[in-house]
């Protein structure tokens, strides 16, 4: 039997074993993880930094003015609650143009991008992230006067992280 045939055969066997167990939880542990996903964590924050640099466009970010609420430990890495908001009052003359959230070590670090308008009058958002492992989460917000605010926080993901 050729080696290229091997994985298929293994999967068939595992599938059969799963069926025998009632197919509710055919696999457990690392083996299931390996079969279930091709997602890999970033080795470092380089890709995240590249996206951040693109967003900054040469402007130095300010460490104040953007608040981030993130639990220190995430018991469910598939849904980690995160809130980010600009703390100063926003008016019709000063607003947040764009806000990005980076999950530094996720396969695709750019989690999402928000855009607001002068009509919004606030920059306060919350969402749920899924994290592949423990990492730092970073947010950058560009205001209409050109300032860029930055906030970051570390989160410890529970068992093994989310397989994406």
């Amino acid at each position, binding site marked *: 039997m050729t080696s290229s045939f091997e994985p298929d055969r293994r999967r068939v066997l595992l599938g059969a074993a799963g069926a025998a167990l009632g197919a509710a939880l055919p696999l457990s542990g690392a083996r299931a993880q390996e079969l279930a996903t091709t*997602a890999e964590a970033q080795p470092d924050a380089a890709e995240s930094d590249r996206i951040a640099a693109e967003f900054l466009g040469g402007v130095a970010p300010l460490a104040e003015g953007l608040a981030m609420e993130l639990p220190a430990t995430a018991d469910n890495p*598939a*849904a980690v609650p995160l809130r980010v*908001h600009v703390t100063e009052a926003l008016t019709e003359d000063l607003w947040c143009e764009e806000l990005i959230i980076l*999950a530094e070590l996720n396969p695709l670090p750019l*989690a999402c991008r928000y855009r607001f308008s002068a009509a919004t009058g606030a920059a306060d*958002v919350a969402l749920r992230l899924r994290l592949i492992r423990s990492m730092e989460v970073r947010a950058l917000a560009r205001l209409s006067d050109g300032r860029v605010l930055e906030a970051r926080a570390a989160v410890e993901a529970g068992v093994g992280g989310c397989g994406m």
Partner: protein
Amino acid sequence: MSRPPRLWISSATPAKGEIIRVRVQIQHVMESGFRLDWNGAPLERNLLTRFEARLNETLLMEWEPGASISQNPYVEFAFAARESGTLRMLWLDDRGMRLEAEREIILSPA
């Protein structure tokens, strides 16, 4: 995707300028495109690609989510109620799903 979004707003009759908070959640698989089926074939990516919220025609917020967003995406945002009108929300995904929700906002007299 047949279920309507779950929607909560802090006030439907705010004072002028009051900050209104909106929380809304839809059912969506948020298939990342990284997962494999039992035959080892990748499952086709199906992520939410866009969410937007408008008050009448004015854009309040637009959101471009990615693979790092949880299933059944939860969106919370705030805006200043400067006029009465219809708060309209729209979701789009990779497979062409289109979901809408709206809520009337009426400024209460000062």
